[in-house]
């Protein structure tokens, strides 16, 4: 009897030890997997740093051959002439002009549309509209560029009686279509996030729905709307294929919307195929990439700052 009990105890001890071993094995496994998950968690930081690193590493090599002053202030971008010149000014001007045009079109329409969706539209319409707007953002930019070539460029040429329809304006119109979903979605979110009491208090004081929108809701959501516009600008500056296909790509500083223009993005995409690895031209395109990346990063940081401030105010 005693023997049997002893046996039970030893067996118990045995299984206990086995369980312990299993536990250690398990927790070691968990420990490793948790470390892996941490590494996955910081992937985006690593990738973003790598992007900066690689662009800087390659792009800064340009300044062995070209002075920083020439790169930033020369008005000539002639990378494949006998005396190549690498002035980024016309490209920056092209990018800014097309972005400005796109934003002038898309901000009033986008903010208006966001207000319509969040305050005026009935629930079912709201859902349909949101799907349509998301779909607009899903249309590949090369499809818009293609339509720009076969349809829009002709319209622009005929309506302004120009010799060519490939102008900054054509680019601006198409890019505005691509910035719209960003502007609408984020503005709509900002207006929706406002406390219900704002509307109720204003309506209870006898204000009409429109007065509530324009005097209470839009000012209260202004930080979110500004962030939406900033992100729209970022989207517009970074757009590549559409502008490359429809703006004519003349590398000179454009003076009106009705002339050809060339953006930084289009320059990189169009000329990279003609470069030799580690040639001056190759480095110059990376340097253009640095300028572009710095611009969009600044815009994003401002938008993030504005959104964070809005969130704190909301609290």
């Amino acid at each position, binding site marked *: 009897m005693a023997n049997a009990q002893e046996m039970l105890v030893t067996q118990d001890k045995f299984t206990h030890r086995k369980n312990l071993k299993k536990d250690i094995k398990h927790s070691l496994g968990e420990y490793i997997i*948790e470390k892996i998950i941490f590494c996955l968690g910081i992937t985006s930081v690593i990738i973003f740093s790598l992007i900066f690193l690689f662009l800087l590493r390659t792009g800064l090599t340009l300044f062995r051959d070209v002075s920083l002053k020439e790169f930033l202030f020369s008005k000539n971008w002639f990378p494949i002439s006998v005396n190549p010149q690498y002035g980024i000014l016309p490209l920056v001007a092209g990018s800014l002009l097309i972005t400005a045009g796109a934003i002038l079109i898309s901000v009033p329409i986008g903010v208006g549309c966001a207000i319509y969706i969040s305050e005026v539209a009935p629930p079912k319409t709201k859902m349909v509209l949101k799907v349509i707007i998301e779909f607009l953002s899903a249309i590949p930019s090369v499809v818009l560029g293609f339509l720009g070539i076969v349809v829009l460029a002709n319209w622009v040429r005929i309506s302004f009686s120009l010799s060519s329809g490939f102008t900054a304006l054509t680019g601006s119109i198409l890019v505005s279509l691509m910035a719209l979903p960003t502007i609408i979605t984020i503005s709509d979110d900002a207006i929706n996030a406002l406390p219900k009491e704002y509307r109720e208090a204003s309506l209870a004081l006898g204000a009409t729905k429109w007065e509530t929108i324009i005097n209470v809701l839009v000012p209260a959501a202004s930080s979110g709307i500004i962030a939406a516009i900033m992100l729209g600008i970022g989207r517009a500056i970074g757009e590549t294929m559409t502008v490359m296909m429809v703006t004519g790509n003349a590398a000179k500083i454009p003076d009106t919307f009705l002339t050809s223009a060339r953006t930084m993005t289009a320059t990189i995409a169009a000329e990279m195929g003609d470069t030799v690895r580690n040639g001056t031209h190759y480095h110059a395109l990376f340097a253009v990439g640095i300028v572009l990346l710095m611009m969009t990063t600044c815009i994003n940081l401002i938008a993030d700052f504005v959104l964070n401030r809005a969130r704190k105010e909301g609290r």
Partner: protein
Amino acid sequence: MTKKQIQEKIAFTVLTMTMFMVVIPTLLIIGYIIYKGIGTISWEFITAMPRKGMREGGILPAIVGTIYLVMGTIILALPLGVGSAIYLTEYAKQGKVTRLIRLAIMNLAGVPSVVYGLFGLGLFVYFLNIGTSILAGALTLACLILPVVITASEEALKSVPQSYREASLALGATKLQTIQKVVLPFAMPGILTGAILGIGRAAGETAPILLTVAAFFLPRLPKSIFDQAMALPYHLYIISTQVPNMPQGIQYGTALTLLGLVSIFFMLATVIRIKFKMANRA
């Protein structure tokens, strides 16, 4: 009607007009591409090789190239994105590291696609010496869609009720087991939506593959992931700008095929999301 009511009426009319200014062009674009392209779409068009400098025949290699690219992209991006989201929702404490990660995600989402192309060219094609290939393109596109996948997965994980986690932990499950058996299955539809949206995005991108994968004209199917390949968006770019005397039918047909492919992913994601929302409400 009082002055106020008239004012409101005018304002709402203007708002409605802005809405139509977004919706009508969108529907016109879709409608026009379908109207002009549907005549070209045939079994031969999507299963034959291009002939006579792409001016005749089909677009099979471009379709296959895009499918390979997209599959590679999602295989690479999904584990990274979901892992990243799990870290952010389940493990991370609010602090500097988390703030840094969020800032990086937001900035990655804003990096222009052509800059991703430069990065892919510098790192994958040259530095790691993979060469212009499907693999280099998929790696580049995976970086590009990572923010989409992370954001969607994070939202999905956040929507899992805290009580589910607590119940599982109270039953003696470890944190990892809880994530594996409780949190992830519940969040799956949301994660899937993000993955599909990412695929749609990757399928339509042109600039990054222009620099990392692109084959101008390659009338055979890629044999391995180290091969160059054609891809639908790049093909559309080529035939609408670089090839003279290109028949418009093939251009519209290619545009419609690309738009159709992207729409399928988009609709799939939308349907899953709506179903998921309804199931959650019930």
